[in-house]
């Protein structure tokens, strides 16, 4: 997921488990989608335990980013094109 360094993002959570990050998205955002690990987002394949939960708020995508040594970060980044692609999939909620 080296491509993540090429976008501007905000860190919403760090030090949480992958599961806690998914729960955070489900409880804090009214729109969220479930994708399989390996889903391509911002040019990077997502790492995670299936299903990977992605949140949407305005033009921002909220997504987990996992580093082998540092665990999972929950990031927020602007991505209208990614949102359109997510919404084009079968909507989960």
């Amino acid at each position: 997921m080296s491509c993540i360094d090429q976008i501007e993002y905000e860190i919403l959570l760090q030090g949480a488990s992958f599961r806690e990050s998914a729960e955070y998205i489900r409880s804090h955002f009214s729109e969220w989608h479930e994708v399989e690990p390996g889903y391509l987002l911002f040019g990077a394949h997502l790492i995670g335990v299936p299903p990977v939960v992605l949140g949407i708020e305005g033009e921002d995508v909220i997504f987990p980013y996992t580093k082998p040594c540092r665990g999972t970060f929950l990031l927020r980044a602007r991505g209208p094109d990614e949102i359109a692609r997510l919404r084009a999939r079968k909507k989960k909620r």
Partner: protein
Amino acid sequence: MAIDTRDTPTALLLLGCPQVPVQTSVAVHLCDQLRERGIAPVIAGTGAARRLIEVADPKRHYIGEVIDLDLCIDQIAEKQRDFDLAFVFIHNDGGVSYAGTLSAISKARLVGIVYGEHADETAATITFPCEVVAVKATHNPMPLVVRLGKVLP
């Protein structure tokens, strides 16, 4: 011993953060055991994990191909490459996430090698299809080596 990987089975060893000492020695040992069985080992890991492995086996008697972790995930996710077996070294939540990713993108028989102080708690978070070998090992690799020997083909 060189293995011709064109027709032989392959096994991925996916290494996590090398924070826990047993990872490197168990990985080298597992490479040897796989080669004994005619299986070509391929190691994917972080930069630090790869350097530890390459320094431990400078003439590559045991290890074979060593590749970047992110590149490996990209190749499997994009269906450019896959393996017959995949061993994921897990000692934290990040390792579980990588194993979960492989469970979704790879057709390999997946084995999670869970170790470290909190091995049992970490193993309990593996809720996807994955064989689990969990041992509370940090410095002594032998219990893990013995348990691994029971799941090797």
